[in-house]
């Protein structure tokens, strides 16, 4: 086939293989459509996963604590990037899956914070701003690109993913951790925002936050949390890499309704996936 096409002026060579112009164009159209689909679908599924596992910490400024927010968010966040990195890297050698996940999630979140929390439920953005999560995604993609190894990406990328989350968000969060006095009590500005803007069905005690430590040796709660998070991220990354592998398996079953559909067996049944 390629020998014939070499004679044709209307062909292109893509990654060492000749393609007819028509097929190259079809392939590019396919690229564009699939990229749009993956971006939308990842945004939908990843945002659903995110909001229903660690959403509360991300919704509210008075939930972004040093213990659970810092620990849980990266652990739950690394799942989809790991699963999709399997597909995009192993099958297409594209180190973009983690970044796509984080970018889609970020855009999905901003849209609903504006439409839902701000416009529908009247909360100010100072209360409902989302954390930034893109830095971890970029590191995962870059480490995978440079090493080509899921294991090293899990160890170096996963640990970085956990460790970078808090410092990347600190410039956003620090203004809300200034101390203030309210009703003769010491609170942070973030606490006060959460207190002032009523969440009728989500009262103060529902906050799943650091209520105190046993020992943090100098008060470095966030550092301890980030380090632990990084450790779990390594394991979760590997787990989800394999979950991604399972989901990407092209398995098929015989269509038992074929005769009912009025179709005849082609004879090749069972061989082609």
């Amino acid at each position: 086939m390629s020998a014939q096409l070499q004679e044709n002026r209307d062909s292109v060579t893509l990654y060492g293989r000749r393609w007819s112009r028509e097929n190259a164009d079809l392939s590019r159209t396919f690229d564009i459509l699939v990229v749009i689909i993956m971006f939308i679908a990842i945004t939908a599924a990843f945002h659903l996963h995110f909001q229903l596992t660690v959403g509360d910490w991300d919704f509210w400024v008075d939930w972004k604590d040093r213990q659970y927010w810092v620990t849980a968010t990266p652990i739950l966040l690394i799942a989809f990037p790991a699963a999709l990195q399997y597909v995009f890297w192993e099958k297409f050698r594209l180190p973009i899956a983690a970044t796509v996940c984080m970018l889609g999630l970020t855009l999905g979140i901003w849209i609903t914070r504006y439409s839902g929390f701000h416009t529908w439920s009247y909360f100010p953005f100072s209360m409902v701003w989302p954390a930034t999560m893109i830095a971890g995604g970029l590191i995962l993609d870059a480490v995978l690109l440079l090493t080509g190894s899921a294991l090293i990406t899990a160890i170096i990328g996963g640990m970085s993913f956990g460790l970078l989350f808090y410092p990347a968000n600190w410039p956003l969060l620090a203004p809300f951790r200034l101390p203030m006095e309210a009703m003769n009590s010491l609170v942070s500005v973030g606490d006060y925002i959460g207190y002032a803007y009523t969440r009728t069905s989500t009262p103060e005690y529902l906050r799943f936050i650091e209520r105190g430590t046993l020992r943090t040796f100098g008060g470095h709660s966030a550092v301890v949390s980030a380090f632990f998070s990084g450790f779990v991220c390594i394991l979760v990354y590997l787990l989800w890499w394999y979950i991604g592998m399972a989901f990407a398996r092209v398995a098929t079953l015989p269509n038992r309704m074929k005769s009912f559909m009025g179709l005849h067996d082609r004879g090749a049944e069972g061989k082609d996936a």
Partner: protein
Amino acid sequence: MSSVIQSSGEVRSATAARPRSMVNLKPAIFTMIGITVLMAGYRIYQQIYAWSAGLDSTDPAFETYWMGLLKGELVILVMSWVGLWSWLWVTRDRNLQALKPREEMRRYFNLVLYIMVYAFCVYFTGSFFAEMDASWHQTVVRDTAFTPSHVILFYGTIPLYILFGVGGFLYAMTRLPRFADRISIPYALAVAGPFLILPNLGYNEWGHAFWMMEEFFSAPLHWGFVVLGWSVLALGGLLLQIARHVFEIMGRLEQEAAA
């Protein structure tokens, strides 16, 4: 860039116009515009009637604006299921063996566009209206399973993506030989998982009735949705399947052109 892609032809011939004939974007684009308008309409409806008629489910206005909408959308969506799915079934191709590569390629692109419309609808459920649900239920006192958020999130947008999810699956099964021969497990997962979110509402409402009186979005009660949402990852497997099929048809197209 230039090291990996080398063009051997400077002038595009008439064949370059051919892909357009195989890729008809219009129906998908118009459908997505329609969906966008519908979703914007839902959102505006919420803005107007959630606060004014949606706080007290014993209020007659609630019956009018929210239960009325619920009944209306369920009737229309179930009718649309019956309509689209039976149309796809009735108009199925009974002679798939005779399918020419050009037509098969055209159908593959139609399938991809079906999946695009499906993903677009899933976005409104999984991302847009789902997090809106948190903003509503954490703000007000829930007094019914059919809240202004649920009437649209659960009973408006989920049946809509089921329409296109099952629709696309049926399209593949009735018009593409390899999907007719064998059922694609990743595709079945990518459709069935999100579909099961609808019956999973039973678990959600059971929990909210007997177990969880406060809105904590990350609560285990909601993790059924999460696990079912993971099935969207099966689109990765489906992508590989379709990509290989399309490549195989490209080979046949080239053979055809060479002949």
